[in-house]
C-alpha cells in the first residue's frame, strides 16, 4: 500500500512537472487571446507562444563580445527556477514526493534567486537599458516581495504551517468559513501577481517603450534560444503565480494521492478538470483586469505595491484580532 502510494506519487510528480512546462505557454497564449477579444481584435491564436518559441529555438544566438559566462547561464537558471517553482506548487494533488520542498518561504526564495540572476545578467553587458531595467525591477520587487511574504504568512497562520500542501489541505478540506484576512490577502496577492509578472498597471509586456518598460529592458540583449528560455520562464512564472493563487485561495478540488488509489476514474479527472477550469477563469480574469486598468507611471508603482503590502498586513492583523 505504502509502496503503491509512493510509486503513484512519483508518477504524479513526473506528470505534473511535464504538464506545467508544456501547459505554461498555453496559459500565456490564452491570456493574450482574451485580451485581444476584449479589445475587439482577432488575436494571434492560442498557440502563438509555442510558435514563437519554435522560431526562437531555430535561430542562431547573437551574444555581445563582452558578455561574461553569467550572461549565458542566466536563461538556464531562470528556466530551472521557474520550472521548479511551478512543479512544486500543488496544483493537482497535495502529497507528492516534492511536497516537503514546497515551503512558501523557499518558494519566495526561488523567485528571488531567479530575479537576482536576471538583474545581474541585465547589467552584465553594460548597456544603459539593462541597468535601467534592473534598477526598476529591483524597485518593484523590493516592495512586492514583503507583500507576497505577508500574504503567505496570513495563509500559513490560518493553517498553522508554511508547507504549501498543508495549507491547501487545511483550507480545502474543512467546512466553508469566511476568512476576511484571506480576502485581504487575496487582493494583495493579485496586485503582487500583476507587478511580478510585468502585467499592465505596472509594466506592459507588449511594448518596448524606454520610459515605462521594466522587464523587457532587462532582456533586450538576449536572442534566439536564450530569449526563448526566458520567454518560457516568464510563462512558467505566470503559471506558478496563478497556481499559487489557486492553491491558496481556491484550493477546492485539489486531490490527495491517497484518495486516488483505487479510484482512478474519479479523483484525477476531477482534479484536472477543476484545475483547467480555474486556470481558464484566472487567465480570463487577468486579461479583464489588464484591459480595465491603465498603465501607471513608474513612480506610482511603489504606491500601488504599497497598497498590496498594506492589504496583506491588514489581513495579518485581522487574523490576529478576529482569529479568522
Amino acid at each position: 500500500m505504502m509502496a503503491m502510494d509512493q510509486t503513484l506519487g512519483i508518477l504524479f510528480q513526473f506528470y505534473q512537472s511535464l504538464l506545467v512546462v508544456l501547459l505554461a505557454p498555453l496559459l500565456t497564449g490564452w491570456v493574450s487571446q482574451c485580451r485581444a477579444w476584449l479589445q475587439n481584435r482577432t488575436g494571434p491564436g492560442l498557440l502563438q507562444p509555442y510558435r514563437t518559441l519554435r522560431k526562437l529555438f531555430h535561430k542562431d544566438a547573437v551574444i555581445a563580445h563582452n558578455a561574461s559566462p553569467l550572461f549565458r547561464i542566466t536563461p538556464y537558471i531562470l528556466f530551472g527556477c521557474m520550472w521548479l517553482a511551478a512543479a512544486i506548487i500543488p496544483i493537482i494533488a497535495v502529497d507528492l514526493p516534492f511536497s516537503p520542498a514546497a515551503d512558501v518561504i523557499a518558494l519566495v526564495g526561488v523567485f528571488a534567486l531567479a530575479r537576482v540572476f536576471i538583474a545581474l545578467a541585465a547589467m552584465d553587458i553594460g548597456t544603459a537599458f539593462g541597468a535601467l531595467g534592473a534598477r526598476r525591477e529591483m524597485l518593484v520587487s523590493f516592495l512586492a516581495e514583503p507583500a507576497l511574504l505577508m500574504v503567505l504568512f496570513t495563509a500559513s497562520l490560518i493553517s498553522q504551517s508554511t508547507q504549501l500542501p498543508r495549507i491547501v489541505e487545511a483550507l480545502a478540506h474543512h467546512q466553508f468559513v469566511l476568512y476576511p484576512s484571506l480576502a485581504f490577502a487575496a487582493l494583495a496577492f493579485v496586485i503582487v501577481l500583476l507587478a511580478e509578472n510585468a502585467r499592465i498597471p505596472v509594466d506592459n509586456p507588449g511594448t518596448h517603450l524606454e520610459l515605462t518598460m521594466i522587464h523587457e529592458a532587462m532582456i533586450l540583449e538576449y536572442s534566439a534560444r536564450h530569449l526563448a528560455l526566458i520567454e518560457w520562464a516568464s510563462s512558467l512564472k505566470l503559471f506558478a503565480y496563478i497556481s499559487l493563487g489557486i492553491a491558496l485561495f481556491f484550493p477546492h478540488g485539489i486531490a490527495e494521492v491517497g484518495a486516488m488509489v483505487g479510484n482512478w476514474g474519479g479523483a484525477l479527472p476531477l482534479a484536472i478538470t477543476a484545475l483547467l477550469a480555474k486556470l481558464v477563469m484566472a487567465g480570463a480574469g487577468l486579461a479583464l483586469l489588464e484591459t480595465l486598468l491603465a498603465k501607471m507611471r513608474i513612480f506610482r508603482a511603489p504606491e500601488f505595491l504599497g497598497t498590496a503590502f498594506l492589504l496583506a498586513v491588514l489581513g495579518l492583523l485581522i487574523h490576529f484580532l478576529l482569529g479568522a
Partner: protein
Amino acid sequence: MSIPFTTQFINLLASVLLLIAFAMLSQRRILSLINLFAMQGLVLALSTFVVAYSTAQHHLYYSAALTLLLKVLVLPWLLHRLIRKLNVRWDVETLINIPTTMLVGIVLVIFAFNLAAPISQLSESITRGLIGIALASVLLSLLMMITRRKAISQVVGFLAMENGLFFAATSATHGMPLVVELGIALDVLVATFIFGIFFFQLRETFDSLDITHMEKLKDDNS
C-alpha cells in the same frame, strides 16, 4: 471552526470597514471621499442589521434603519449638495507622503488592537474582537483629520470617526439605549448643518476652504 455564519459575516464587514478607513486615508478626491463615507455607512447599517438578526435585539433594527437613513442617504446627500454649491466637487487634495501615512495607520491599528485586547478577552458576546477594529477605525479617522488640509475632508473624517464609534457601540454592546442613539444621531445631523454654515462663512472670509489659511492664531503674534 464552528463559528456561526452571521459572526463570520460581521467579521467580514468589520474588515471592510477597516479597509474603507484606509481607503479614505489615501483618497485624494473629495467626491470619492464622500462616496467612501456613504459606503462606510452602508457597511455599518448592514452590520447593525446582522447583529440585530443574530442577537434578536429588536431595537437594533431601528438603529440599522436610522444609520441607513442618516449616514447613507441624508449626510452624503447634504455633503454632495454642499460641494456642488461650493463648487469644489472636483477638487483634488495634495496629500503629502501617503506611504508614511499608511505606515502610521498600520501602527495605529496595532496600537488599537493591543488596547482592545484585554476587553476582547472579557467579552463572551459573538462579536468579540470587533471593538479593536472599531477603535482602529476611530483612530484612522482621527489621523485623516490631522493629515487633511481641506475643511470638507476634515469634516468627512469627523463623521467617519462617528461611524467608528457607532460600530463600537453595536458590536461591543449590541447598541446603546435608543434614547442615547437618537440623541447622538441628532447631534451628528446638527453638527453637519453647522459645518455647512461654516463652509460658507469660511469661503466668504478666506475665499477658500483650505485650512492652511487658519493657522494665524498663535500665542506670540496675537
